[in-house]
């Protein structure tokens, strides 16, 4: 079983070392932008005028060599943070990103306190 796992690990890693390219995927960006005129859909899911326009602009921005995060920043500059599905890590959102992990660590600590100190 361990051998299988090692083999699997190997296959996956080798697959990855080849696929590590640094291109920006427009589809991914479309998925992470909210279509403001639709009910809860992403730009990728929508075909509205707004979504089409955003798709064109995203394509331009990628051609200009902007990175994924720069594109999100551009969009939230123009339309507010509401448009980006991935909340930025800033002071306002710090609790959102950190609290789950605090809960995780705290929970682990809690369980540990229940364990026998010595076997």
């Amino acid at each position, binding site marked *: 079983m361990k051998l299988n796992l090692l083999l699997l690990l190997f296959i996956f890693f080798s697959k990855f070392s080849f696929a590590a390219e640094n291109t920006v995927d427009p589809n991914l960006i479309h998925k992470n932008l909210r279509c*403001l*005129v639709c009910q809860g859909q992403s730009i990728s899911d929508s075909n509205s*005028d707004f979504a*089409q*326009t955003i798709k064109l*602009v995203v394509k*331009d921005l990628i051609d200009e060599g902007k990175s994924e995060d720069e594109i999100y920043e551009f969009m939230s500059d*123009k339309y*507010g943070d*509401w448009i980006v599905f991935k909340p930025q890590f800033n002071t306002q959102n710090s609790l959102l990103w950190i609290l789950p992990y605090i809960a995780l660590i705290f929970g682990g600590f809690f369980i540990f306190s229940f364990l026998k100190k010595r076997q």
Partner: protein
Amino acid sequence: MQKIIKIIISFIFLFVISIFYISLTRDTNYNTSSLINKETPEFKIISFNDSNYYTRDDIKNNYTLINFWASWCAPCRIEHPILMKLSQTKNLVILGINFKDKEPQAKTFLSELGNPYDLLAKDKNGKHSVKFGIYGIPESILINKELMIIQKFVGPLSDDDYNNIIKIIE
């Protein structure tokens, strides 16, 4: 110690519930106000008759209302009389941007209802609209002499909006 924990827990719940309560009374409609009080973005947009380009230099030294419109947009017809009224006022330049439209239809629209625009440009594929944070038309943006965006109007301009604009520019 236990008492403190109890108090903290109660406070957390109280806090959550009061936030819920506050949110109930808030307007849930979204409007993009993030551009207000920011500088007008750089732009270079082609005029309606393809003769020249408009940039920020063309709207300096005056109050400007940038209006995104199209002939296929029904609410644009509703706000048109107000734009016509606004075109009478001095010290306001109206820059109309024809959004994703076909030229003949746009021309008919203007000849039928009148042309309120001091400057007229077109945005064939809508890309320019994104610079101004437009997400549906009609939308209008009021810009002051220092090229600061001071107001944004989503949806057709109303009489209240008219009075508001007049007040600001005077």
